[in-house]
């Protein structure tokens, strides 16, 4: 049903849209090359040094009876993850590998090449992030659109947003022009915490960088802790992206995608008939 009162508003600035799509590309390749790099030593530790006998998480291939299984261990818990983690591949050509070949770049386990991919897109990601930050701070995008207002953080409003989000009811009219408090919180957490954390923990794995900023390595609790946090943060971002994609679909796939390409976002008037 076409709504004659539907209006297109200019929602996303060009810088936001361009940096968003560059991030999609860079983060996808960083994740996939990162999973390949992780395969070179599929175990994580806390502190400065590895405690080889006691990783907090590990992925291995182990014989069990007359077959090989993929095993993921978290602490003392043991999970059979054959086919996905530890041991995977097409029937007849399975191999001992942390993450399956369809999830990694390059698809074959190759530390040298996956590092090339990782560092190339790390630079793209960092430069892209700097542009976003400089323009976002300069033009006030971050302060104006992302930092929650007093009204946003009022408990009643937060609760209201949680309830309506859970019911997959989305704002209409005037309210749809702005991000709601849950969006603001999620986007800020990504832009302010998760993405910078990826860069900083990544840098802390560099022995050259560590000589210049040993205090930062200490802040994360050591190089192996930084590697662990790098891994956990990466999967936090994966979690965000899955939720983000779900919300994109739930609140109008094409409207959302169009707004991130052309900047124009369609708003449906609310009950009062106000055209927003």
């Amino acid at each position: 049903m076409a709504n004659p009162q539907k209006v297109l508003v200019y929602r996303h600035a060009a810088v936001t849209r361009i940096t968003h799509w560059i991030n999609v590309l860079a983060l996808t390749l960083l994740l996939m090359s990162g999973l390949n790099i992780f395969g070179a030593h599929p175990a994580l530790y806390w502190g400065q040094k590895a405690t080889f006998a006691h990783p907090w998480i590990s992925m291995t291939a182990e014989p069990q009876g007359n077959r090989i299984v993929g095993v993921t261990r978290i602490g003392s818990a043991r999970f059979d993850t054959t086919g996905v983690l530890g041991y995977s591949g097409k029937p007849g050509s399975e191999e001992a590998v942390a993450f399956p070949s369809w999830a990694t770049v390059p698809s074959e386990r190759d530390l040298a090449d996956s590092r090339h991919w990782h560092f190339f897109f790390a630079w793209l990601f960092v430069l892209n992030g700097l542009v976003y930050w400089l323009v976002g701070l300069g033009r006030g995008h971050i302060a104006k659109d992302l930092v929650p207002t007093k009204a946003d953080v009022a408990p009643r409003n937060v609760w209201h947003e949680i309830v309506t989000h859970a019911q997959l009811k989305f704002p209409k009219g005037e309210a749809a022009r702005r991000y709601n408090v849950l969006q603001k919180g999620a986007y800020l957490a990504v832009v302010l915490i998760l993405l910078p954390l990826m860069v900083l923990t990544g840098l802390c794995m560099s022995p050259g960088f560590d000589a210049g900023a040993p205090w930062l390595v200490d802040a994360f609790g050591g190089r192996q802790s930084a590697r662990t946090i790098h891994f956990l943060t990466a999967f936090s971002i994966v979690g965000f992206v899955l939720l983000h994609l779900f919300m994109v679909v739930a609140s109008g796939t094409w409207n959302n995608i169009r707004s991130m390409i052309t900047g124009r976002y369609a708003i449906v008037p609310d009950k009062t008939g106000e055209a927003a």
Partner: protein
Amino acid sequence: MTFSTHRRGWLRAGLASAGALVLAACDRITNSSRGVAVLQSAEGLTRRAQRLVIDRKALAREFTPADISGDFRPNGSIDPQDPDYLALKAKAFADYRLVVDGLVERPLSLSLADLRGMPARTQITRHDCVEGWSSIGKWTGARLGPLLDRAGLKPTARYIVFHCGDTLEQTLDGSGQYYESIDLIDAYHPQTILAYAMNDQPLPVAHGAPLRLRVERQLGYKHAKYVMRIEAVDDYRHLGRGNGGFWEDRGYEWYAGI
């Protein structure tokens, strides 16, 4: 319902094949020399950025004896079978001589006793493997800078090459012999030493006996073990397969600061 199910099926198939296409494209880039060259352009950026931001004399973190790893993992060659090396090992390296030559005024041939008599340094540092793990060890050795000064570098010298006694890969052309190279910034760094002791004991064979390089601000593969000869050169392209080191010849970065 059936329409929607069909559509979902198509969508899923579409996404899966798009994903497969992207993966195949990435693999094609990885397998083309031009693609890898573009990706590897990041290495120069990383080296320049690190050299710009970080003090060239900045020291790698040093630790306390309590931090030393009990499970320091040896990697690469751990028990070389090269006949020349076995002959030296059989006599507990009494006949070992470190040769220093190339673009130097006074080529040297140094015994282990000579090396122990040179300006030394002891440091407890973290060894970071390119694979991702770290171990902490205590190293004692002759500082490379004073040793190079004793030989007298010629003005044309730009790199220091370490020729090693181990063959890590059997090849017909001899390119499986381990070697490494560093520039003069790292060669003259105060923590760059030729270690003959680890954790207060003579360097074990698994860790590079009788002599290994410690170049603390780079990854483990730069720390050449079983060092037999040090050569000052103006370029390393004539060595091995031309990339400045055994692992560099197999695709790894020459600048291993990250």
